[in-house]
C-alpha cells in the first residue's frame, strides 16, 4: 500500500467517451438479482422479506453483512439491481418527447416513416454526410424532416390514412380519429413503436442500436441497489426508509392491484383505472414535480424526493455534489490589512498553520529539518501532525503518539512527514464571488499571531476586498507540481496587469493616493529626520541623495525620494489626476505641477496621484514599469515606494472636520440669492405654462417641456452653488486633496456637503407621487414648484428640512434597489456568457477554437495580441516608444 491509501490497487482506465442510450428491458432483466413482488419490507420478526424492497440481494449495507450475491461485505459490495415486472406497460416521462416524435412521423398501420422511399433514400444520403461533418446541422435537418413527415396524412407505403396525434405532457397521447379523440394506451403505443424500422429511426435522429423506441415504454422497471437508497437508523432504534424506497413500494402496491384485477377478470373500467394509477405513480417516481401528476407523499404531507429531485437544482447531485465538491486542506476567516507584508504574501494565523499541513518527503538533505518538526509535535508550531513510515507503510498520528523524540530519531529517508504550514509555503487565496481569474491568486505564507488572514491592502482591487468583515478562503496545495505551477502562474505579482483591458489591476487606492500626492507636492520639503523615517518605511538601504536645499537646513523634496525607487532609465510623461479644471495643462510646460515628467528615473515635475500609482489606471507609471521592467520590478515598487506613501500620511496625518466643509456667511448668502433667483425664474415658467404661453420643445408635450426646463434650470443652480461654495474653500484642505487626487470622494460629494443636495429623482423624474396631486401634505395640490417636487436646497453641513429628508430618502431608496437588481441581473448574464465560452481556447497556431476543433476566430482578437501585454489594448504604442527611448524634449533642456 502506498501513500494514497491503497487506491492504486485497482486497475485504472481512461474514459475516452460516454454514450447515452435507453436501458433496454432485456438488459434490466439480465442485471436484476431480485424480482420485487411484495410492497412490505420486513417480516414480523424484523428480518427483510425476500422479494421485498429490502431483500438482501440488493447488496450488503450493514456493517459485517455479507452480500448473498457477490460475497463481499459492505466496503466492497457494489450493490445489485432488482426489477419490478409491470402487469401492463407504462410510459416513462421525458422519454415521451421522443415517443411523440416517432409516433408523429411514422405510419399508424405499418410503422414506416411517412416519407416516400426514393425521397427517404436521398435524405438518408444527405443526413449521413451532414452527420459526419456537421453534427449540429444534421440536428436541424432532422427537425425539418420530422416536420415534413408529420404533415403527411397518407402513408406512402400502405396507403393508410393518418390521424393527428395530440401529446399532453407528461404522459398522455390522444389520436384525433374521425369518430372522436381517443386516448392511446401504452400497449398500443408500444405496438406501434415496435413496428418502426431501424433505418427509419436513423432519419429521425435516433440510434436504433442503443435506443429502440419501444424500450421507452417500460414493461419492467429497474430497482436500484440499497446503497442508492440506504435506510437510516434513528437514535431511538427505529428504522426509517429512504424516499426512493417509499416511492418504489407504492409502485409495487399499484402493480399488485392491477395484477389482481387482471387475473380476477375484474370489470374493464377498474382495470383501466388501476393501470392509469400505475402510470402516474411511475411518472412520479421519475419526477415528483411533473405538472398534472399527483406527487407522491409520505403521510399526505411531505412530498417525496424522487429520482429527478435528487439530480435537479442547486443542491442536486450535479450542481451540489459534482460541480460543487468540498475540499480538505482549506480554511476561511476574516481578513484584515497589513501594509508591511509583501503583496505576494498572506498572513496566516498560527492556529490555522498548525492545522493545515504539507506532506514533506524526507531526503538526506532535509532529514534534520524534518526531525525538528516531528520533535515539536502537533501542538507546537512549526511541528508535524502525521508521520508516514515508508518501511512499514504505517501512518502514525502524532496526536496519539506521545514519544516525539523516539519518533524523530526513527525518521529515515523516504518517510513522509505532514508538517505544519511554514513561512514561504505557496497557498491559494480566494474571495467570492470568483468572477475573474484574479479572484484566486497564489500567495506566500507568513505565519502570524491572532486570528485573521492578513492581506496587503494593495491587493484589494483584484479580489474586490475590503476589511469591513470580509472573509476569504485559503487552500494548501499538496503536490510539488501544483505548488510550482501556482508560483509560476498565479503568484500575485504575475497579475499586476489584467488580461482584460491592458492596464494594472493592482495599485494604490485611497490612502496610498493621498500619501503619494502629499509626498510629491511642490511645497513638500523634508528634514533629514523625516527623510530617514520615510526611507526606513520603504526599506531603503542606499545612500541619502544630495539634499535639494543645503542651507540654512538640509532639506529634501518628496520627488527626490520617489526618484530613488524608479528604474534609472525610465522616461515617462503623462497627466496627473489633478490635471483638470483650474489646474489643467495640456503640455509639459505646466505651472500647476499637474503634468508628470520622469526623465532617466528622476521625477522632475508633476505629482504622483491616482493617475500615476493608482489601480486600474491604464498606462500609468506603475503599468509602464510592470510592462517594460517586468512584474517583479513592479512588485518591488509596491513593496517599497508605496510603503513610503503610507508613512507620509502617518507623519502628516489626514483627517477632515466640519470646518473643512464650512463656508463663510457671505458665501451662504450668495447661494441663497442664487436659489431665490432660480426659484423666481421657475415660478415664471410655471406661470407661463398655466397661462398656455409656454412654447413646447418639438416632439414634447407642454408638461414635458416645462419639466425639462425646470430640471435644466435646477441643474444649473446646483452647479453654480457648488462653484461658489468651492471657491470659498481652502483648496489645500484634506477633503479637497482627496477629491482632486482621486483618493476618495468627488466634486459632487463636496457640493452636497457644502452647498446643496440638488434635485432628487424617482425613475428619472422629479418626485411626483405620494398623496393625491401632491408629494406630501405640506404642499398644495398641483404645486409644481421646486421644493414641492423634491428639490433639496439643504446640505449635509447645515442639515435638511423634514420634507427634504423625505425626498432624499425616496431618491436614495431607488438607488439601493437599482444596485441590487443590476448586480443580480448582470451577474446572471455574465454566468451565461462564461458557460457559453468556457471551452474556447487559443490553439498553438493562433486560431481560436471550440472544444470540437471548430474555428471561431482565425487569429485571437483578430490581431493575435495578448491584451495583458499591451498598452491599454495597443500591442505597440509608438508614442510610448518615442517617449521611452527618445529624449524628453522640453524637460531635458
Amino acid at each position, binding site marked *: 500500500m502506498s501513500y494514497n491509501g491503497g487506491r492504486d490497487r485497482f486497475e485504472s482506465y481512461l474514459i475516452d467517451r460516454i454514450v447515452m442510450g435507453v436501458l433496454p428491458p432485456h438488459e434490466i432483466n439480465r442485471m436484476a438479482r431480485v424480482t420485487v413482488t411484495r410492497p412490505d419490507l420486513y417480516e414480523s420478526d424484523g428480518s427483510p422479506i425476500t422479494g421485498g424492497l429490502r431483500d438482501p440481494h440488493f447488496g450488503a449495507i450493514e456493517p459485517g453483512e455479507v452480500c448473498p450475491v457477490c460475497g463481499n461485505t459492505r466496503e466492497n459490495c457494489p450493490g445489485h439491481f432488482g426489477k419490478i415486472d409491470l402487469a401492463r406497460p407504462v410510459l416513462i416521462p421525458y422519454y415521451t418527447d421522443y415517443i411523440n416524435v416517432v409516433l408523429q412521423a411514422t405510419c399508424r398501420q405499418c410503422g414506416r416513416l411517412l416519407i416516400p422511399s426514393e425521397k427517404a433514400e436521398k435524405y438518408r444520403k444527405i443526413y449521413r454526410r451532414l452527420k459526419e*461533418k456537421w453534427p449540429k446541422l444534421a440536428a436541424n435537418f432532422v427537425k425539418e424532416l420530422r416536420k*415534413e413527415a408529420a404533415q403527411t396524412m397518407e402513408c406512402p407505403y400502405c396507403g393508410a390514412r393518418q390521424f393527428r396525434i395530440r401529446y399532453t405532457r407528461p404522459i398522455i397521447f390522444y389520436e384525433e380519429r374521425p369518430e372522436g379523440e381517443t386516448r392511446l394506451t401504452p400497449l398500443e403505443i408500444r405496438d406501434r413503436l415496435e413496428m418502426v424500422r431501424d433505418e427509419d429511426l436513423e432519419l429521425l435522429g435516433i440510434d436504433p442500436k442503443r435506443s429502440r423506441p419501444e424500450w421507452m415504454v417500460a414493461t419492467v422497471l429497474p430497482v436500484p441497489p440499497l446503497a442508492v437508497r440506504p435506510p437510516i437508523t434513528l437514535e431511538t432504534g427505529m428504522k426509517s426508509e429512504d424516499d426512493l424506497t417509499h416511492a418504489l413500494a407504492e409502485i409495487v402496491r399499484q402493480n399488485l392491484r392491477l395484477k389482481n384485477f387482471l387475473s380476477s377478470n375484474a370489470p374493464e373500467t377498474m382495470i383501466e383505472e388501476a393501470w392509469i394509477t400505475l402510470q402516474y405513480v411511475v411518472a412520479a417516481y421519475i419526477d415528483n414535480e411533473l405538472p398534472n401528476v399527483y406527487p407522491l407523499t409520505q403521510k399526505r404531507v411531505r412530498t417525496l424526493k424522487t429520482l429527478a429531485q435528487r439530480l435537479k437544482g442547486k443542491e442536486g447531485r450535479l450542481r451540489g455534489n459534482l460541480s460543487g465538491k468540498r475540499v480538505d486542506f482549506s480554511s476561511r476567516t476574516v481578513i484584515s490589512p497589513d501594509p508591511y507584508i509583501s503583496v505576494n504574501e498572506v498572513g496566516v494565523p498560527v492556529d490555522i498553520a498548525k492545522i493545515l499541513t504539507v506532506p514533506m518527503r524526507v531526503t538526506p538533505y532535509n532529514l534534520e529539518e524534518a526531525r525538528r518538526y516531528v520533535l515539536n509535535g502537533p501542538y507546537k508550531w512549526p511541528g508535524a501532525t502525521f508521520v508516514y513510515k515508508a518501511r512499514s507503510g504505517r501512518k502514525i498520528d502524532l496526536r496519539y503518539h506521545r514519544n516525539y523524540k523516539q519518533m524523530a530519531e526513527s525518521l529515515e529517508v523516504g518517510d513522509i512527514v505532514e508538517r505544519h504550514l511554514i513561512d514561504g509555503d505557496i497557498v491559494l487565496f480566494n474571495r467570492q464571488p470568483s468572477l475573474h481569474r484574479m479572484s484566486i491568486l497564489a500567495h506566500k505564507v507568513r505565519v502570524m499571531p491572532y486570528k485573521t488572514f492578513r492581506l496587503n491592502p494593495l491587493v484589494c482591487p483584484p479580489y474586490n476586498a475590503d476589511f469591513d468583515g470580509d472573509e476569504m478562503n485559503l487552500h494548501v496545495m499538496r503536490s510539488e507540481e501544483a505548488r510550482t505551477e501556482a508560483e509560476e502562474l498565479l503568484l500575485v505579482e504575475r497579475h499586476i496587469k489584467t488580461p482584460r483591458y491592458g492596464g494594472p489591476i493592482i495599485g494604490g487606492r485611497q490612502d496610498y493616493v493621498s500619501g503619494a500626492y502629499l509626498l510629491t507636492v511642490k511645497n513638500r520639503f523634508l528634514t533629514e529626520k523625516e527623510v530617514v523615517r520615510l526611507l526606513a518605511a520603504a526599506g531603503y538601504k542606499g545612500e541619502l541623495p544630495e539634499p535639494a536645499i543645503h542651507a540654512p537646513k538640509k532639506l529634501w523634496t518628496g520627488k527626490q525620494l520617489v526618484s530613488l525607487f524608479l528604474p534609472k532609465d525610465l522616461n515617462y510623461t503623462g497627466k496627473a489626476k489633478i490635471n483638470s479644471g483650474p489646474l489643467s495643462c495640456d503640455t509639459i510646460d505646466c505651472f500647476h505641477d499637474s503634468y508628470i515628467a520622469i526623465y532617466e528615473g528622476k521625477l522632475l515635475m508633476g505629482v504622483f496621484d491616482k493617475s500615476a500609482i493608482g489601480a486600474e489606471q491604464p498606462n500609468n507609471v506603475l503599468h509602464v514599469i510592470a510592462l517594460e521592467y517586468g512584474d517583479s520590478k513592479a512588485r518591488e515598487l509596491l513593496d517599497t515606494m508605496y510603503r513610503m506613501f503610507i508613512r507620509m500620511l502617518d507623519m502628516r496625518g489626514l483627517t477632515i472636520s466640519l470646518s473643512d466643509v464650512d463656508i463663510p456667511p457671505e458665501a451662504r448668502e450668495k447661494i441663497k440669492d442664487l436659489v431665490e433667483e432660480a426659484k423666481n425664474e421657475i415660478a415664471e415658467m410655471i406661470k407661463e405654462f398655466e397661462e398656455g404661453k409656454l412654447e413646447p420643445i418639438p416632439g414634447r408635450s407642454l408638461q414635458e417641456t416645462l419639466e425639462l426646463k425646470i430640471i435644466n434650470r435646477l441643474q444649473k443652480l446646483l452647479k453654480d452653488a457648488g462653484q461658489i461654495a468651492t471657491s470659498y474653500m481652502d483648496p489645500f484642505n484634506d477633503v479637497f486633496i482627496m477629491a482632486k487626487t482621486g483618493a476618495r470622494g468627488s466634486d459632487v460629494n463636496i457640493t452636497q456637503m457644502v452647498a446643496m443636495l440638488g434635485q432628487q429623482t424617482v425613475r428619472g423624474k422629479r418626485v411626483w407621487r405620494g398623496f393625491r396631486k401632491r408629494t406630501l401634505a405640506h404642499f398644495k395640490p398641483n404645486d409644481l414648484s421646486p421644493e414641492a417636487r423634491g428639490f433639496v436646497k439643504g446640505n449635509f453641513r447645515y442639515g435638511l428640512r423634514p420634507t427634504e429628508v423625505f425626498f432624499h430618502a425616496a431618491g436614495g431608496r431607488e438607488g439601493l434597489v437599482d444596485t441590487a437588481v443590476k448586480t443580480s441581473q448582470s451577474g446572471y448574464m455574465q454566468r451565461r456568457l462564461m458557460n457559453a465560452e468556457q471551452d474556447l481556447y487559443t490553439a498553438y497556431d493562433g486560431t481560436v*477554437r471550440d472544444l470540437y*476543433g471548430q474555428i*471561431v476566430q*482565425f*487569429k485571437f482578437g*483578430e*490581431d493575435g495580441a495578448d491584451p495583458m501585454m499591451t498598452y491599454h489594448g495597443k500591442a505597440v504604442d509608438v508614442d510610448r516608444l518615442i517617449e521611452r527611448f527618445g529624449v524628453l524634449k522640453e524637460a531635458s533642456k
Partner: protein
Amino acid sequence: MVSRSRKKRLDTRILEHELVPEHRILSLEEAAELLRTLSIKPNQLPRISINDPIVQLLGAKPGDIIEIKRRSPTAGESLYYRIVVVF
C-alpha cells in the same frame, strides 16, 4: 425540403452597404491553400447558410469558401473565412 424554389429577387445594393463587408469566393487553389495552412478539414471552418443574401448574390454553391474582409478595431483589417452549407 428546403423551399429553394422561392427565389426572391435580391437587391444588389446591399453589397454597397457600409455595414456589409467585402465578400469573395475563394478559387479552388486558394481554398486548398487555406485549408493546408490551417491544417484543418473544411468542416472545421465557420459556416454560412446558402440562404444568406450575400451568398446568393455571389452565386456561391455549398462547399465554397467565402473570404470576408472585415474592418477590425484591433487589427485594422482582418480576413475571415466561412464555408457555404445547405442550411
